[in-house]
Every structure is written in structure tokens, then in C-alpha cells.
């Protein structure tokens, strides 16, 4: 692939981009954070959460999948887009059963951090309270689907980074669940706690066993700076 340079415009700011990048990647390289949950930079995009939706030349599109081209005009940090992103985060909170105070991921949870960043106070929507089974069949790793946001990171990581295929989806619509590659539970798969998939979950759904909240409050990832700060700190444009 050639590495032709081009210019795109994000919220009125000219940003240099390289052919082959996605809008989200080009923005991140320039220190502009486009909120996203299902995307993870080690993985190909999934296009699940839609939080990274921006307006590209006036039309909404997911920035994690959209390739850059010369002169794209992008609306990212606008009241309209942020309100809709917040609505999506609220949808995720009512879709599952998320108990932040008792969750080991609290403070390091990207979903929780996204709620804070986007100014979510409390979901406006009714909680759907699904009844969900926990899979603790594996010796070292558990899946608590109550906290699953179906970002598909574990499934992509298992294939792309671990060379396995431990995860997939089951069902459709609201009944969609993360599935494992076994007739029984995760314990019957070739999952290992060392797999990248075991530590790539943005929430507390897929976790290595034997760890409580190891890091004290105050020292957790999003305690003092909001999610996306790492990207914004390297800002090259103003």
C-alpha cells in the first residue's frame, strides 16, 4: 500500500492523514480523540458500538471503519454527536446488568469511563434486566455475560492475536450473546489466561480469575483523567 499523504478536516482543524488509515486512526495520530468502545487499536475494526460515529461530509458513518480520502470534512466533537453517543452508552447500561460498585473492573472499565466522559448521569431508558448465566467453567478465566456489551473484541483478538477461535456470537437481535467454541462452557475450549483475548475486554465481562480490585481507588486507569486523555495528550494540532 502506498503511503500517500492527504489532508482531512476534523471539527474545522486540518489534519494530515495517510492513505490506508481510517478516520479514527488519522484523528488519533493527530491527538484528536473520537470516542469509541468496540474498537481496539491492535484489532481490525468491528463496527459494533457505533460510538465512534462522526459526520463525514454531512453523513453519519463509523470512523473506525471509514477510510480517509483527501478533503473529508468530519464533525466529531459536536453537541449533536456527543448526545447520541451518550444515548448509546445508556443503551448499553440498560441492556445488561452492570453493577459498577461491586465490579472488579470499576475504575478501569471503558464503558464506565465512557459514561463519565460523555456526561451520563443515569440512564433515561428502562433497564431491560435480562436473565443471564455466568460461565465459570474455565479454571482461570470467567465470562459474566451480564457485563458483556457485545463489542466482539475477544472474538477478534482470539483469531487475530492468539491464532485461535475461542469466541463467536450466538443468536440475533437483543438475544445475541457471546458464544464459546465448545458444546459446554469456556472450560471446554483451548482458552488460556495468557491469551490476549483474556485481557482485552473493555468491561468486567471476560476476566482472569483470582483478581479482585487489585489497584486501589485513585490509581485506576480513569480515576484522574477521562478516557481518551492518552490520545489527547499527544495533540499535534491546536
Amino acid at each position: 500500500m502506498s503511503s500517500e499523504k492527504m489532508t482531512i478536516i476534523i471539527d474545522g482543524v486540518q489534519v494530515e492523514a495517510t492513505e490506508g488509515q481510517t478516520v479514527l486512526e488519522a484523528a488519533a495520530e493527530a491527538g484528536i480523540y473520537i470516542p469509541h468502545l468496540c474498537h481496539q487499536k491492535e484489532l481490525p475494526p468491528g463496527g459494533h458500538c457505533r460510538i465512534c460515529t462522526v459526520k463525514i461530509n454531512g453523513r453519519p458513518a463509523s470512523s473506525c471503519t471509514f477510510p480517509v480520502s483527501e478533503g473529508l470534512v468530519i464533525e466529531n466533537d459536536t453537541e449533536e454527536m456527543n448526545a447520541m453517543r451518550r444515548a448509546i452508552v445508556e443503551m448499553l447500561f440498560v441492556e445488561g446488568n452492570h453493577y459498577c460498585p461491586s465490579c472488579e473492573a470499576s475504575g478501569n472499565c471503558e464503558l464506565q469511563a465512557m459514561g463519565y466522559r460523555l456526561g451520563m448521569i443515569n440512564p433515561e431508558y428502562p433497564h431491560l434486566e435480562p436473565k443471564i448465566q455466568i460461565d465459570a467453567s474455565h479454571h482461570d478465566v470467567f465470562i459474566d455475560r451480564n457485563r458483556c456489551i457485545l463489542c466482539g473484541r475477544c472474538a477478534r483478538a482470539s483469531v487475530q492475536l492468539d491464532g485461535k477461535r475461542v469466541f463467536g456470537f450466538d443468536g440475533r437481535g437483543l438475544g445475541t450473546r457471546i458464544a464459546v467454541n465448545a458444546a459446554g462452557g469456556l472450560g471446554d475450549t483451548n482458552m488460556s489466561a495468557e491469551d490476549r483475548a483474556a485481557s482485552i475486554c473493555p468491561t468486567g465481562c471476560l476476566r482472569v480469575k483470582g483478581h479482585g480490585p487489585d489497584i486501589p481507588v485513585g490509581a485506576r486507569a480513569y480515576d484522574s483523567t477521562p478516557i481518551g486523555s492518552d490520545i489527547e495528550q499527544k495533540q499535534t494540532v491546536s
Partner: protein
Amino acid sequence: MAVEQASIIAGIAERFGRSPARLIDVARAAHAELGYLSEESMGLIAEALGVERVQVRDAVSFYHFFEREPRGRSVVYLCNAVVERMKGADEVVKAFEEATGVSMGETTSDGAISLAHTACIGLSDQAPSALVNGVPLTNLKPSDVPMIVETLRKGEDVSSLPQAKVTMNLLKRGNVVFSDMDPGAALGKALSLTQVELINEMTVSRLRGRGGAGFPTSMKWNFCRTAKGEAHYVVCNADEGEPGTFKDRVILTECPDLVFEGMTVAGYAIGAKKGFLYLRAEYEYMLADLEAVLAKRREAGLLGKHILGKDFEFDIRIQMGAGAYICGEESALIESLEGKRGAPRDRPPFPVQKGYRNQPTSVNNVETLCCAARIVEKGGAWFAAMGHRDSKGTKALSISGDCERPGVYEVDYGITIRELLDMVGAHDVQAVQVGGPSGQCIGPDAFGRRICFDDLATGGSIIIFGADRDLLEYMRQFTEFFTEESCGWCVPCRVGTTLLLKEYEKILEGSGTKSDLEALKKLGTTVKTMSRCGLGQTAANPILTTIQNFPGLYEARIKADEFIPPFDLAKALEEGCAVTGRNPDLEEKDV
């Protein structure tokens, strides 16, 4: 049994070349043979195709017609689409429940019959309807049911029943799709042109896609032709699932030759050797006839190598679906064609760049391909002389609901809704749903509007609601349809459609306020803006277009209060009060 099952599945997989891309076919055949796909069956399929079990589960669990639990020897799929329910489907359901002694979703204790719901099966013009072991039963009355159940209990075939009859109801033939054709005429002409000349003819005709989106066919073909790839593919989208649409059923029955001719012409235009017709599972009863037409065309030298003696090779395979409305979306259809769950892809890249097996693929609607064949035969100018402004040619409409003559009508573009209602014998009309639930619902003040791409665009579904219908209840049913058909891939559609339904039900139950209506609009806009594909982007349309066009109906339902909590204390206490013999505090109850 285990050994037997293993050999059955191994045999099926062998028939499909052990190709993972044929996973849907293998699963369909195994399902037909075994009655359902157990955990064990999925494991065996995975083994036979050399894929992981989770890949089989990923695909199989997605489709409506794949059962994963044992079911009755016969499964009665009762259609619960809106028009079906307008025509008495609920009473038919009740009659089935009475005659079998089980509820919907259950199986009789003798294992003979299971009852299940299914979305629109393309028979809204002869509703209520059902699919029993793949056989369509139409114009059902509750009084028919005992005899049908008796037949099934005895294990007899339902195809000989008087209800097992699909009427064409082709009530108006236009000059394009439903006029006489001579197989090979268009193809012969096409092969005398260069690819560029052929596509130029499409440009002159100004043909636009008939699925509803209206993308210019010449552009699509040209993009596809010039896109680099190891192979190019033509796909005919015969997954018509938009509730209230059945024109493809009639086209595929009345003029299959024209459809295949159009596909072959498209193949020549874009440089493809292979075409697929993706047929929705509900239309399996047409498969044998369609295969016979293909065989005849192969014999006549209209398919295969050296078509019409020229240096052009092209053949067509029919791919059956397995029950998923979303597969009508072109990229979801391609995923399904590759043997996977029908989850749409993000675009770009578009299918014309990277479609089937990541190769340039032109996905066209059944009717578009018919038009294309005609255009080659009779010329682009002939076609462009028909229609209205930027909408040239004719449109096959599926018209159903409250009218005297439901059926398929091929009309010139530009017909007004008023003319259309006169044509089908509809009186005292409250509303017309144009383009199915993903389209828009309009009232009498808009009946002067025209069917065309610039005004009322439609893939063909027209549903008429008479004056005495509870319009908003049908909008609720449309919304429910989207919750059931959402693929689940993206959050705004997966969760948003259910939240829309819940919020909408609150309003219909009479506990909604002005602020609820505002919240509903906001939610609808979020789902529309943020969803990944057309399903989510249009799922709020029944709600949003009726709020806009029928504000009075909503004002009559909402309360003057600023806010009513969704939680009804008195209702929640009802059961406990009944058990303990106490009276709920009626002071709290909103009356």
C-alpha cells in the same frame, strides 16, 4: 443414532463439496433430515466442513428457520405480519391453539405439531397465511383449522389441501416486466454489443434500482465492471422480506426467464461468469420450478459455456436463505451467501468493490434485472419514454390491506396515491403505508403525492389502512417486527429498537405524556442516525412518520401531565393484593 447422524451429515457435506461457504446449505439439508440442529449436529457439521463449532453456531443461531431444539414432525409457521393480522390472523392462531391444545411456540405431546410465528411470507394479498413444512396455505379461516390439524396429526401431506394454493393476483400488466418475452432475445442483442455499449444503453434508459434505494443501475454496473478483482459476480436479490411485499413472488413465478435473462445480461456487462439468485427461505416452494427453468436455459445454450455460440460463459446457482429479513440488505445477503450469519458490512468498501469473496459484485433487485433485460431488447430510449421525471419505466407494486382487489400492479412511475387507491378499489382510507414499515405512513392530505424516487420511493409494498383501523397499533406491530429482525450487530439498532417499542407501548397504553413523545422522537432520531445499516436507519420510521403525519392520533393518547413514571405501583401490587385479599391503594392509581 449418533453414528447414523454422523454419516447423514458427512454425506450432506460431501454433496456440497465440504465447502465452508456452503454452510447454510449444509445446515438446511441437515435440518430437513434431522428436524433440528442439536449441539451434536453443529459439532458434526463443523467437523465435516473443517471449521470450528463456534462458526457453525454463529451462523445457525442467526436464522429463524433453524431450530436448535426438537420440534414436532410438522411445524406450522403462522404469519403475523400486519396485513395478516388485519385480515384475521389472530383468530386463526387461536383456532390452531384450540385444535392442537398447545400455545404458540409449543409442540403437541404426541410430537406431531409445533406452532410458531413468522414474519411476512409474501402472501399479504391472500392473508391470513401460513407455511406448513414449507407449503404455503392461504386465505385461512378459523373453520379450516381443525381439518388442517387432523391432516397433520395423521402425518399426511398438506399440499393436497384446498388451502395449499397460491394465487398470482397479477392484476395489471405493464409494458416492461409483465409483457411477453422471447427467451434469448435480450441476450442475443447484448452479446452483439460491447460491455461499454451495453452499459451506455442502461445510462440512456436511466434505470434505477427497484429495491427502493434507487441507485442508477448503469453506475453500479460500471463501478463493478471497472473494479479490479480475480472474478466478478452477479447477485439477484430475491430475499423480498419487506412486510407487505410480494411482487417478486409473482415475477419469479410469471417470468423467471426474464429474471435469469437479466442476470445473464448483467454478467456480460460486468464481466462475471457466475451469478447467484438468493431466494428467501419462505419461497422454497418455488425452487423446483426455478431450477427447471435454469436447466432449460442451459439446454438452450442461454447459460453455460459459449452462450449463444459466443465466447461468453455464465451460469447461475440458486442460494436458499434460512429466514432473516436483514438478508435483503445487500452486504448482509453477501455474508449469508458466504455461509455466515447475515450481518451487514460497513461501507465503504461497497459490494461493487469488495462483495462476494471480497470480489467486485453487483447485487440487483429481481425487478431491476427484468427491466435491464427489456432495456437491452428494446432500447434505453424506449424505457426512458415511460415514467415520471427522474423515475423512468414502470414499477411493480404489491398492494394489500383494506381494498377490494389486493394484488400486484405494474404501473408507470408517477401514479398518485389517489389514482392507485381508485385502481384497487379502496374507499374511506385513513392511511397508506408506502414502502412497508421502513417507508412512510401518509394520510389523505398527501394522497396527491406520486410513486417515484423523488417523492414516495418504494420497493413495492403498499399497505392500505381503512378508516376504522387502529393505526398506531399497527405501527406498534411494525416496530415489534424490527426488534425481531434486528441482527444484533450494532448497539443503536439492537437495543434501540426494543427501547422504541417499550416507550411506544407506554404511549399506546395511555401512560405517555408530552415529554414521552419528545423522548420517543429523540430516541428515534438516535437509532436512525447511529445504526449501521438500513434496518436500524429506518426502524423508527413507522413511529416518526406517524408522529409527523397523524399528530392528532397521538394527542388523543397522551396525558396532560408533565411526567408519569413507567412504574405503576398499583399494578405491581395487584397480584399480591389479590393473594392477600387486600385492596390496592386506589389513590395511587392513575385514573
